[in-house]
């Protein structure tokens, strides 16, 4: 209820300005640069050529169509599987739920392209399952490459998101609602379709749109398993990176299209979630029922089956990491050779995977604390601007941000040599931080809303200065929420590929980049070993998250 809307030059004013300048430098400038490149050429001035080229040639525009096809199909499958599993979890009593839940979270946390590569090993032309089926049963497995492969990987990678969303929403449905339906003679599937699903609808929509966005912007999976089936992010990457005739203006135009699509989806989600918004509060959450006989059999088969399929690629990679290899071919016998090779050749990438996200997370936490405090408690024009700016990375796909950074900082800001950070650790740290900030800001804003302003006023009335109150009272109270959010951010950072693949150099290569390049080169043993190491990092971080947050559950 402060009356002054002007920015005052106390610590908060200074913090606001520093944050604003940072965002202008590392978000507005690079993204603006992309926009400029896409519309402006030195020879012709303002031009729509790049866009005309894209939409007039089906070779290019088909990729957009392909992206929509795989993303929509994968979203539908992910929705069906995720909802089914969440329903089983909420309604029925069966053993091993906690373990399954953790496995689902692990499956969702790994980099999608690693799943793609593992599925190639399993179901590809010379995959283990493929060979087993054709040799012993004479069954021909369907082609894993292209559309079906991408959909398979996306579905298995992304259904956990739907599951986690709906699992959370089920906790807000009151048992009495189900009982009321039952009292009116509506049970089973009919009850699910007419009562439960409509109640879950806001959550389902939010989750589905998130899944769609992830599928739409993922680049590693179609790159590996797509073969001839090119999606939009693949096109952006290849157009930008291709050594012969790489066209950065055209790539920029593609990036602009990607941003526009993401923005439309984001707005759609806002509108839809407003329309479907209603609040539920369960006094008695839905309680699980014991199942017997055939029904019990199916509950176990479906839930364990889905989760097993989801973690199968990870498990198989762990297995192959211990196999002897010679290039692309796995040999008989087991050893730690792959790990030895991985450490000797890719040792620095392991270190980078810890180092770069570590710096990024420090920046993220610092900025998130200040931005959320400014946005919630010191609302004015500048802080409102910062608040909206901080949400832009939501709608800028990783590949696009990577391209923007490369083109903008190659010769420094505006070609002046100032901040020519391309190829440094700094550019990776900053890009990671910028991309993850919106998520951590959201969780710190939530944490801050939990703190009543009267707590801060109490401290002030006791003679504590505003600064002292912030550091001694507000920040310590926000910390548990922020740390939990930061660990989740950390997990997504260590498996990040789409930005780092563009920005890395030999010295700043991360494990995910190393896995990707090793897979491309055919060094499957090293790739498997590195994937296993990455998985161990993920699992450890997840355990840490559970310890810090005191929950064995991740709510989104």
């Amino acid at each position, binding site marked *: 209820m402060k*009356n002054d809307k002007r920015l005052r030059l106390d610590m908060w004013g200074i913090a606001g300005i520093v944050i604003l300048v940072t965002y202008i430098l590392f978000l507005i400038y690079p993204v603006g640069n992309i926009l400029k490149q896409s519309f402006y050429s030195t020879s012709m001035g303002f031009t729509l050529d790049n866009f005309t080229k894209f939409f007039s040639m089906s070779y290019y525009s088909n990729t957009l169509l392909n992206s929509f096809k795989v993303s929509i199909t994968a979203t539908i499958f992910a929705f069906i599987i995720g909802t089914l599993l969440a329903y089983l979890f909420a309604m029925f009593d069966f053993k091993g739920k906690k373990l399954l839940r953790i496995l689902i979270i692990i499956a969702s946390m790994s980099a999608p392209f690693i799943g793609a590569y593992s599925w190639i090993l399993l179901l590809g032309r010379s995959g283990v399952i493929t060979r087993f089926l054709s040799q012993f049963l004479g069954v021909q497995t369907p082609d894993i490459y292209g559309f079906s492969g991408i959909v398979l990987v996306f579905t298995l990678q992304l259904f956990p998101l739907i599951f986690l969303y709906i699992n959370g929403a089920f906790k807000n449905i009151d048992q009495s609602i189900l009982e009321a339906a039952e009292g009116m003679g509506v049970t089973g599937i009919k009850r699910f379709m007419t009562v439960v699903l409509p109640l879950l609808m806001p959550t389902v929509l939010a989750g589905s749109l998130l899944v769609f966005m992830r599928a739409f912007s993922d680049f590693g999976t179609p790159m590996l398993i797509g073969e001839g089936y090119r999606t939009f992010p693949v096109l952006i990457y290849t157009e930008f990176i291709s050594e012969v005739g790489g066209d950065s203006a055209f790539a920029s135009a593609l990036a602009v299209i990607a941003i526009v699509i993401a923005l439309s989806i984001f707005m759609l989600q806002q509108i839809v979630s407003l329309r479907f918004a209603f609040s539920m509060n369960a006094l008695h959450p839905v309680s699980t029922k014991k199942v017997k006989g055939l029904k019990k059999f199916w509950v176990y088969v479906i839930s364990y089956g889905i989760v097993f399929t989801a973690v199968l690629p990870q498990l198989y990679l762990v297995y192959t990491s211990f196999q002897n290899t010679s290039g692309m071919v796995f040999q008989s016998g087991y050893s730690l050779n792959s790990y030895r090779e991985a450490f000797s050749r890719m040792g620095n990438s392991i270190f980078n995977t810890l180092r770069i996200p570590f710096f990024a997370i420090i920046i993220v936490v610092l900025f998130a604390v200040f931005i959320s405090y400014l946005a919630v408690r010191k609302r004015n024009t500048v802080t409102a601007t910062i608040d909206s700016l901080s949400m832009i990375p939501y709608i800028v796909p990783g590949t696009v941000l990577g391209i923007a950074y490369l083109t903008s900082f190659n010769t420094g800001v505006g070609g002046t040599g100032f901040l020519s950070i391309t190829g440094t650790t700094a550019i990776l740290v900053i890009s990671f931080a910028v991309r993850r900030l919106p998520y951590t800001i959201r969780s710190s804003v939530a944490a801050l809303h939990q703190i*009543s302003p*009267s707590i801060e*006023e109490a401290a*002030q009335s*006791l003679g*504590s200065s505003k600064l002292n109150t912030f550091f001694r009272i507000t920040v310590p109270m926000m910390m548990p929420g922020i740390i939990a959010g930061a660990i989740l951010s950390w997990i997504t950072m260590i498996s990040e590929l789409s930005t780092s693949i563009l920005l890395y150099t030999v010295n700043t290569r991360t494990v995910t980049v190393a896995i990707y390049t090793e897979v491309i080169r055919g060094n499957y043993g090293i790739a498997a070993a590195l994937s296993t190491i990455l998985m161990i990092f993920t699992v450890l971080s997840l355990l840490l998250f559970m310890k810090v947050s005191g929950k064995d559950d991740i709510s989104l």
Partner: protein
Amino acid sequence: MTQINISHAKKVFDDVTVIPDLNITINEGELFTLLGPSGCGKTTLLRMIAGFNSIEGGDFYFDADRINDKDPSKRNIGMVFQNYAIFPHLTVRENVEFGLKQRKLDKKVVRETAEKYLKLIQMEKYMDRKPERLSGGQQQRVALARALAINPAVLLMDEPLSNLDAKLRVDMRKAIREIQREVGITTVYVTHDQEEAMAISDQIAVMKDGIVQQVGSPKALYHRPANEFVASFIGRTNIVMAELKHSNEGVAELHLQNGHVVVYPKLNHLSDQTVRVSIRPEDFIRVEQEASLNTFVGKIEDSVYLGLNTEYVVALSDGHLVQVTEESSFEEDLTVGEQIALTINTDKINVYCAEGLTNLSEVK
């Protein structure tokens, strides 16, 4: 001990004037309550004294010290909040020590002072607990100790009891009253609960729409409310329309709307006019029969038995409904529809001008 002086206070929120021009003096060591319905500006005024709301006009003094432009942390106040505002990441002891540490006191002094005040509120057993394991009442005790421990010039309490359940509220207000007396600190207390205000205060300021309606002791407010708003806000009352007339001898008479005439010599000095008469439910007295001239009849429309009292809704002969309270008894057997005879305790009624804004029976 500190006297608080507020003159011509003005508060504006987004171009809406919440408090136009307010003057109050709070004496040393007094427990002064700001009472009023929600939105009357009582919390706004308290927060202006605390420094959490800006002051758009007027002067705020703690003794000779003008505090208008002082930061809250420099005003030397202790504040207790409705939602306790206990620091959840600190133990009970650390909560109480927090303010003392800000004053850079010696460690030993900090410890001893904190313990002294925790003993005062009988919470020394819970010293090393985290607040999440305390009940609401216990948390509010800690908040009180925390506010008092820094030995503030004034104690400000913003609806400190409204988050507690009814039984605890009564216990706590007694505790607050005792501790306030013992420490002897000038206290400003905000509440919307008139019973709580009556029980706890030395002086009460009744507020409405940012304007102080009356300042007075609980007794004065109940028996001589300055206007109709105060009369109906403090306790309950019936408003009966009347004509003030004078007999041939010049004695004032109130001709009530049901035709009953009350001889009311107190108003002899006033001219004839339309007035509004405030009669509290317990000042209607039931008599056995329509014995004398001083009684009139009414019909019972409804009755509620409350144990100590029985409340009747009575229709007067002109159809006007009034509330009548009577001490209950085992023998009572009045039923709805029955005719009863009533008289009025004229000593305790208040007569207001036609607008209800001034009390005409106030002895000047």
